[in-house]
């Protein structure tokens, strides 16, 4: 979907941004925020999601005697929009960022540490806390989180007489058995962007790969696994062009029996009544190992707006959104796992089909935990590595060596 968002040429964007900044700067002096309205910047551009968000906001804002106004921009534009707002001193009271963008923002000094605002995070899962932290300080908290799992076609597996694979070797064998005619056994996204990197991480991390030392040798087997799947023709070599949405389309069309994907595909999958699917944990290198998938989702942060009172009101709204009952309801609305441990348990009990996701977020890891604000460069370098290996341009070891030098080039 994100491909449909039109992105202007960067030079033009910079030019326009600068021009707008000038105008905003001139007009900014008379810009006093409405005391009765708390503003939010998020990526809920989808009408349904936007309205749902609004309902939760309204419920929480009403007792405080305020209104909440959302500004929603496409997910990949939240950062640049927020930066523009920052330089014109017009940041919203609540800024909802993708978890992987928190360090970039926190590093600028533009976010208030949550403990200074009165946001209560007791009882939240450890992985959710790490995702919103930078340099040991918590700047944002997620209401719900997601991860990746193995989604498989129950009918196709039954027909082939196989069980969902739990190890990498089993994955290769099972995928081969499931490959017939126009149907591949396995599908994943390997695009050179956030989609592809997110999908590669469970394999990279479960094998022992380290994003801070890409070339330590532990990450190569994961690259080898992906290449083997493509070389034995159990997965399409077109994976390098498929985003997560495309992978889901292939799965729905019956062109793949298993796929790596996230819970945000559940609404689409559920629309197809004759498609029987189930969720399993992502296969690990050796039997008995624990999968280490990435944790994803958006976190709510409170930007520095120099207005303590508004920050306090924003914190109260965030606290209300994170009450157990609201978290469960929100998690069910967006098919993500609540971050409050007790809410997660309730969610799992009510949605057993998505239990694998609920289990995985417990061991899931934040992408920015080790490399912090350096993550975008590491992410691009990792994407370069799996793309060059999958297209036969490089060996896994050489690709990761190259990636490490690319990730540290700017230092």
């Amino acid at each position: 979907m994100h491909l449909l968002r039109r992105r202007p040429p960067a030079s033009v964007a910079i030019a326009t941004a600068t021009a707008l900044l000038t105008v905003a700067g001139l007009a900014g002096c008379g810009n006093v925020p409405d005391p009765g309205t708390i503003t939010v910047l998020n990526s809920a551009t989808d009408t349904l999601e936007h309205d749902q968000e609004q309902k939760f906001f309204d419920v929480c804002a009403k007792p405080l005697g305020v209104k909440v106004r959302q500004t929603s921009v496409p997910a990949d534009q939240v950062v640049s929009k927020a930066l523009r707002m920052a330089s014109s001193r017009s940041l919203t009271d609540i800024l909802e960022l993708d978890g992987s963008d928190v360090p970039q923002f926190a590093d600028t000094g533009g976010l208030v540490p949550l403990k200074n605002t009165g946001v209560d995070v007791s009882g939240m899962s450890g992985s959710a806390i790490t995702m919103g932290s930078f340099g040991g300080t918590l700047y944002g908290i997620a209401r719900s989180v997601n991860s990746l799992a193995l989604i498989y076609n129950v009918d196709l597996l039954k027909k082939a007489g196989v069980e969902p694979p739990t190890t990498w070797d089993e994955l290769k064998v099972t995928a081969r058995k499931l490959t017939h005619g126009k149907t591949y056994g396995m599908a994943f996204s390997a695009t050179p962007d956030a989609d592809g990197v997110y999908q590669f991480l469970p394999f990279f991390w479960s094998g022992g790969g380290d994003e801070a030392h890409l070339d330590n040798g532990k990450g190569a087997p994961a690259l080898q696994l992906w290449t083997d799947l493509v070389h034995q023709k159990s997965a399409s070599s077109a994976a390098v062009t498929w985003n997560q949405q495309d992978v889901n389309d292939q799965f729905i069309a019956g062109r793949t029996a298993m796929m790596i994907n996230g819970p945000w595909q559940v609404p689409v999958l559920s629309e197809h009544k004759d498609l029987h699917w189930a969720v399993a944990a992502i296969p690990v290198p050796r039997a008995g190992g624990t999968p280490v998938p990435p944790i994803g989702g958006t976190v709510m942060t409170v930007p520095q707006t120099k207005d303590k009172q508004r920050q306090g009101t924003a914190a109260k709204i965030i606290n209300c959104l994170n009450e157990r009952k609201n978290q469960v309801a929100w998690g069910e609305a967006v098919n993500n796992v609540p971050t409050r441990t007790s809410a997660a348990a309730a969610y799992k009990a009510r949605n057993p089909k998505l239990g694998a996701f609920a289990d995985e977020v417990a061991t899931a890891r934040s992408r920015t935990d080790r490399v912090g604000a350096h993550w975008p460069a590491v992410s691009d370098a990792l994407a370069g590595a799996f793309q060059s290996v999958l297209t036969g341009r490089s060996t896994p070891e050489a690709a990761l060596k190259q990636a490490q030098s690319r990730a540290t080039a700017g230092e």
Partner: protein
Amino acid sequence: MTITAAVQAPPAGSTAAGTPGAHRRRDTLLRWGFAAPAVLYMLAFFGYPLVRNVVMSLQHYTPRSFFTGESPFNGFDNWRAVFDNPLFTGSLWHTLVFTLGSLLGQFVLGLALAVFFSRRFRLSGFVRAVLLLPWLVPMVVSAVVWRKLLDQDTGVINSLLTNLHIVSSPVPWLSSPGVALLSATLVNIWIGIPFNMVILYGGLQEIPRDLYEAAALDGAGAWRTFRSVTLPLLRPVVTVVLVLGFMSTVKILDLILALTGGGPADSTQTLGTVTYQLSFQELDFGQGAVVGDILILVSAVFAVLYLRFNRANLGQGK
């Protein structure tokens, strides 16, 4: 203020016939008054960002700069980093191949179609209008559709080619680094043909019919007529088409982002996508500005050529 004064000037002048000196001054004022909005607009929306972009390429400009307003100058560090980046050197070649390939393909096919449609036949106008459609579709939409058409396993193009036994195994249009740039170029040619066709068709209509009659009387064949009559008279239009085509192709971004995202394995990274990646993915606005500057420079060279040519054209005009 200047503007209002200048606009009100003519009626005042017509009642009280001033001295010749005052009259000339009023004329100058009037001329500037009309030019002022355009000049101000250009300064605010082109001049300022342009200068800003050049300055930014000499600064350490990060997300932090947006909050603190501090962006220390770091000399040519950004420039050095960009020139050392293998991604940039690769993208230079890709941009060159992509631009020249696109221009050549668009122009040859556009000209062929323009010549074809300049003959009168039934439905000529209708077919010409249909051929214009690719130009009306937003670039990103075209790219998304082509991405589906060119898909290695499920794309229509491959199933057509294999069913007709033109190829034995599916062509990895977008999934092989060796083919992806060619595919992107082909898609861009498809997008650019209508523009070339329409402008060249217009140019062809301007050529006086009697020249063709004279050529026919002199016994010139079709090819000879095309070479000696059509091409020379079409030259001004050809230059315009090529220069404008170059400027819009060299900075291409949306098509590539939606089609391949610069992949696979960076094989379709162009100057446009590298600027985008540096600025908005890695958030190094200084380095992004460097590539932006280079793009502006390249475009500026061709813009000057275009202006010069246009002026020369107007000078010798009727």
